[in-house]
């Protein structure tokens, strides 16, 4: 399987340790090949999305986005993505956060294109189940 057909998994989280653990978790996933793109903030991720076409692959790309980040919060990123209908149609988006606050749960309802909310900490199996669900 060549590079083009690897499923693209994008993680946006300012916590370096989480990014490392997340990478290890993905290495243990054996169902299909994955290409992992970790970003420490949303601006860097947007720069990447501007310059790379992630929609060409056969599998839809999948985005994991933290809420509380410097420069641009996860919600602010959602505000930007909301207008890119092509992108959100071809992409699965998950929020990953340690926040259990009411206001963050209410925010979730404002973005119907979000596929799910993953509460930190989460286990390897929980992540694999999400990756196994095919559209």
């Amino acid at each position, binding site marked *: 399987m060549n590079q083009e057909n690897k499923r693209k998994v994008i993680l946006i989280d300012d916590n370096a*340790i989480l990014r490392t*653990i997340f990478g*290890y978790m993905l290495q243990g996933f054996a169902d299909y090949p994955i290409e992992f793109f970790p970003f420490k903030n949303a601006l860097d991720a947007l720069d990447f999305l501007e310059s790379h076409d992630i929609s060409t692959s056969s599998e839809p790309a999948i985005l994991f986005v933290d809420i509380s980040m410097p420069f641009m919060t996860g919600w602010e990123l959602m505000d930007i993505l909301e207008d890119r209908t092509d992108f959100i149609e071809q992409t699965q988006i998950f929020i990953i956060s*340690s926040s*259990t*606050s009411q206001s963050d749960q209410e925010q979730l309802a404002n973005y119907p294109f979000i596929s799910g909310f993953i509460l*930190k*900490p*989460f286990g*390897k199996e929980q992540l694999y189940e999400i990756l196994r669900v095919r559209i």
Partner: protein
Amino acid sequence: MHLQRDSLSTPSAQTECSGLEGLITILEDGSILHLNARACELLGLGKTETKGKKLHELITFYSSDDTSAPVAELTPFQIRPDDNRIHEEKILGIAIEDKFKWFVFHINPFREEDKTGLQLSFFDVSKLVNQNQSLKDKQHQLQLLVASLNDLVFEVTDTGVFKNYWTNDTKQLFYPPEEFLNKSLTELFPADLAIPTIQLIQNSLKLDREFKMEFQSPSEQHKGKWYSLQIKPIHRTQNRVALVISDITKQIESTEKIRFNEHKFNQAFHFSGLGIALTDLDGYCIESNQTLTKILGYSQEEMSTTRFSTNTHPDDVEREIELRKKLIRGEIESFTIQKRYRHKLGHYVWCSVTIAAVFDNADMPLFLIVQVQDISESKKNIEILKRQKLESDLVKMDLETKVRQLEEFAHILAHNLKGPLSNMPMLIDELQVTKDEEVKTEFLNLLKISTGQLTETLQELGDILELRSNKSLVFENCDFLQVYHKVKQQYIEEIQQKNATISVEFNVANIHYPKIYLESILSNLISNSLRFTAKDKAPYIEIRTTLEEDGTLLTVRDNGLGINLPKYKSQLFMFKKVFHRGFESKGVGLFLTRYQVESLGGKIDVQSEPNEGSVFSVKFLERKQ
């Protein structure tokens, strides 16, 4: 004068010449038979022209009643068929050159031989008749005069018997004339009116003086009416008086009204809850009431010798004098001021004072009415309320700040603590299952880092929480310049490295504040300005203090990167927020600074635009020393 009736037909020469009476004999148809010289003289006739003529055709006679000329045939100077007159006396006049001459005619019928006729003897009574006439005229005029008066006039005897009356309207009389004339006051009126009246009549006659009394109508018909009774002696008759009765109901009513108004004013003046004084135009007290005495402590007598300015606080005198002048000039109708009076005991009393001017009919100011209300109590209450409001405002501000801080702590808990914490179980899970030694080592290392991060965050939170219990803070006199120099030492290296310039202008040199806070605040702001510098220009930082209305303002201006305020302002002073990519920043500084400022009631604010630099301003709420 004696008249010889039997010799009338042939009057003797004697009577013909010397008698004062005019004598004429006429036949029954009125033709003149004979007349003497006196008759000719009186009637202005020549003797010859009268022969055989009829008297009533020769002269026009006028009646004395109305000076009209009767029809010639109806004059008494002929005998009509049914005439059976024996003797008649009649006054008739003739006109000579526009004047009347009046004669009294004695007319006697006679029968002599075959002739019947009338014997007329007459003499001149013009003087009497004219006098009578003028009396009649006078009487008429008098009646007209009486009729024009609204008064009732009675002629009354000394015993109170009505003899005569004059009025223009008989309806005004208490009784029809025939019922009261020749009756006594005592028969007609109740004793309480009649007896005093008779008393006055007798006094009036005795002392030859005029008396007056007023009484209310004794009859049902004129109920409620008031009359004035004047008693004047009529001298000529000695025991007669004139009673003049006038209806004075209207005057009485208006007098009553005035008296009532005066009474009302007096009641209002003396029993008012307000202190009231009347002052002359120069401000000297004319009269004052009891309430004013209560307010100011001076008795009414003491007050009456003082001028308002004597007992007014010196700062309030000028204003009141100006307003009083305007009032007297009629420029304003009244004015109300709040002023301080000096109480007799020496202390000042706050009063609300309303002053109005009273003018006479010619618009000349007469005096001023001053109304004084003691408002010292409410002044005091207002002061207390103001202070309480200030206190509760401070408490409210404090509470609002605390509520916001609590919300922020909840946020910190959700993101900054739970984040690093959530890594740890994930790392442990992986450690438990992995067989790879390399991974194990790395994950143990990550676990150590996570623990370190968590400890650090907890430490920072601990510092911040400590700010909240600031009881141990020592307030001292801080010299801005001194604090600045101390802080600057920490950044000497960066200043040199970035070739930064810092200028200071401390218009306020000192502040009463916890020194460690001031150092921390200044340090954080300078640190921010030195860190987020623009690449293409040498950093320039301007630090100054200025005195504002409600405290000292510290501003730190730089020419650095600036901040996109519309986007970040809400987060700028939040915990662990960073806004500049590529700089070493933990995002704790401004949060800490804000906490330090706010914990002592101050405010921190920022003005900035990206690439234009930032101005941070700190408003200190200084505690009273």
